[in-house]
């Protein structure tokens, strides 16, 4: 029996491993993984894509799914945590310890995911607003469409710093350096849920349960995610 899992792009590597293990353990099961931006995944589901499990990179998207009646509140659980970090190119001479340091004139460009559409951008906006820096830094901001774009810009030295998830920074350890972990008053947690329309509910539940098992959490941890 096949179970279709739509998962946020940032989960790609980890979920591929987990799905493989799952299939080894349950040879009769087949996991079809579908990756994309959380918002796009939701749109597909809303238009009737045959998905059984949805793993989103933010709470808002899952909230929206709940509001549209696609998932039941009882079915959703947070399964990992991520951290927001400020990164600079490895060879950067900037000395940034606090968010205030971004005000230095030597910091000319900052890559931030577009708060309107990219979850990491929303978290960044929260953090900068809390630090009363949001309007002041606006002129230095380069809006990006996803985390990967911010990461590329920092890695290639096109911007002086950028806000990404800890998991993204882990991808390019050789090119970017974490300057600081950004303090947030909310937790960045990823929810996972079975969909109401799932035609394969038992398998969906079993897969979700599998994601919470220690061996799966270890894999997630390997890619920079933290326990919820």
């Amino acid at each position, binding site marked *: 029996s096949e179970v*279709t899992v*739509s998962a946020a*792009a940032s989960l*790609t*590597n980890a979920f591929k491993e987990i799905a493989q293990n799952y299939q080894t353990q349950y040879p009769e099961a087949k996991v*079809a*993984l*579908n*990756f*994309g931006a959380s918002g*796009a995944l939701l*749109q*597909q589901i*809303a*238009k*009737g*894509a*045959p*998905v059984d499990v949805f793993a989103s990179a933010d709470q808002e998207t899952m909230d929206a799914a709940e509001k549209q009646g696609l998932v039941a509140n009882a079915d959703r659980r947070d399964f990992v945590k991520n951290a927001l970090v400020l990164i600079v190119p490895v060879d950067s001479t900037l000395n940034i310890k606090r968010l205030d340091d971004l005000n230095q004139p030597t910091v000319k460009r900052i890559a931030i995911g577009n708060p309107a559409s990219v979850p990491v951008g929303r978290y960044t906006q929260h953090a900068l607003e809390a630090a009363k820096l949001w309007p002041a830094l606006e002129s230095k901001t380069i809006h990006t469409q*996803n985390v*990967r774009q911010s*990461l590329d810009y920092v890695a290639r030295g096109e911007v002086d710093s950028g806000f990404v998830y800890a998991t*993204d920074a882990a*991808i*390019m350890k050789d090119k970017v350096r974490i300057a600081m972990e950004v303090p947030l008053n909310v937790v960045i947690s990823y929810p996972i849920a079975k969909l109401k329309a799932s035609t394969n509910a038992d398998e969906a539940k079993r897969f979700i349960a599998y994601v919470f098992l220690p061996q799966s959490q270890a894999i997630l941890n390997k890619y920079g995610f933290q326990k919820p």
Partner: protein
Amino acid sequence: MNPAWTALLLSLKVAGWATLLNLVGGIAVGYLLARKRFPGRDLLDTLLTLPMVMPPTVLGYYLLVLMGRRSWFGAWLQEHFGISLIFTWQGAVIAAAIVAFPLVFKPARAAFEAVDGQLEQAARVLGVSEMAIFFRVTLPLAWRGILAGVLLAFARALGEFGATLMVAGSIPGKTQTLSIAVYEAVQAGQDDVANTLVLLTSAVCIAVLLLAGRLAPGRIANQMQG
């Protein structure tokens, strides 16, 4: 089987079918626009060009709206044929075909318009039916121009991922085409994988295009009276 290999085969299947659909549809529409006079002809031409002007992801979103189970069209397909296009390679074919369609019909129209009408007249007098004239005179003489568009459409269908991703998703082995795999590899920071896949796509594309170029009949039009 190697996943890159699977993705390649899928890509070729999707691009191949999309190109085939466009070949037939593009030739038909191009011919219609070139030869029939009707009110709103140029407007129709322009409207059919619009898929080019929309960001593919956005186009994909509209396709999703149109073909989803909740739409009347999607529901109708589901009910009468048990077909769901979302998350299937057939859906990917439709997305790729729509994205690339203008690339075929517009050059085809121009090529048909360049065919000397007197040659069709001559064929008519010789008693050959309109349909046969199309296949024996018009199409061969317009073929080089049409082929240029078809090859572009094939390349575009092979490279398309925005609309495809939206409609068909990215399910390895099922709907994950090569270019979606490339996109994901880049997203996931696997630059080597991305580079390898890009090289693979390019090599396949070069091979197909060179082969197709060979299939073209000699540059007859150019030598017509030269």
